[in-house]
């Protein structure tokens, strides 16, 4: 479930890439990403805490999308 303000969409390929998943978990300053044995998880309760730092977009170019729900009609 998305947050009220922010949603994060991740390419399913990323979830299988343990290294990239760990990298995402490391760079996110508000712990939206969690890397586990099952791969990458999105911590839904933290979505609205996203600070739009773009660090996730930097480590996984083209594979992560941050959606600002308040920009949608």
């Amino acid at each position, binding site marked *: 479930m998305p947050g009220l303000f922010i949603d994060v969409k991740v390419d399913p390929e990323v979830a299988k890439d343990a290294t990239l998943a760990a990298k995402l978990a490391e760079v996110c*300053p*508000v712990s939206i990403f969690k890397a586990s044995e099952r791969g990458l998880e999105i911590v839904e309760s933290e979505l609205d805490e996203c*600070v739009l*730092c773009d*660090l996730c977009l930097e480590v996984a170019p083209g594979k992560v999308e941050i959606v600002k729900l308040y920009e949608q009609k």
Partner: protein
Amino acid sequence: MSILISKDTRFIVQGITGREAINLTRENLDYGSKIVGGVTPGRAGRDVYGVPVYDCVRDIVKAHGAVDGSIVCVPPRFTQDAVFEALENEVKLIVVVTENVPRREVAQMVELAELRGARIIGPNCLGMISPDEAKMGGIGGPAANTRQAYTPGNIGVMSRSGGMTTEIASTLTNAGLGQSTAVSIGGDAIIGSSYAELMPLFEADPDTKAIAIYSEPGGRMEAELADWIRTNKSRLPVVAFMAGRFMDEMQGMRFGHAGTIVEGVEDTTAEKIKRMEAAGISVAERIEEIPELLRKRLAEVN
């Protein structure tokens, strides 16, 4: 000209991988500041917006040569150690962002800084900015917002409140008055650099023509400033904004910053206003009165 920082100041960020530090690193870089490295123990090898991360200050100095300053942005219980580390690596200008550091630890940091010939700004501050030169700290926020609030000019700004530093600068900018340097000095009971301790720097800066300060109940810093102005026959007109007037009726209650409490008559806004006016400082009741008061005082000087 400006005080404390210019575009040539090379500094580091301690605690660079934290949420707030990441933010201010990006904002400082975007504004044109020179950040040579960052420290987070155990995170050597990473980078934050292109700034290399090291385990300790010593390693940055080894790799990049001496640095001029450091922004300390680590949790309260690690702050003193981080400042000591910077001081012992010959960093001479330290901005301590962290809030809630007990005053014993702050006093010890300040005393070691004196022994090492270094200056501390803060704690509990947003740092400082010399508009269009550089900024060091979260002051002004993202570069675009910072340029909106701060413009180069002749007013020196000092404030115990980080937020009010930008509010005042923004008001000055809107009124066509630029700033030489604006310093968020920190709101704690003990801080590295008080109004009076920064006055000699502004006094010596030919581009600074007047001073605007934000003031509030608690402490003796306004009395110290009034004394300094009187003893040194300062050339700079000073305009102060005084907040927290409601606190005069609420003895013993702490509001705002750690240093903001009315415990005796000397802590009240009424008493502080009296002292400042006696030393020739103009006191504004509303922020928007500051530009006009400054213009009036500047006209008197010329």
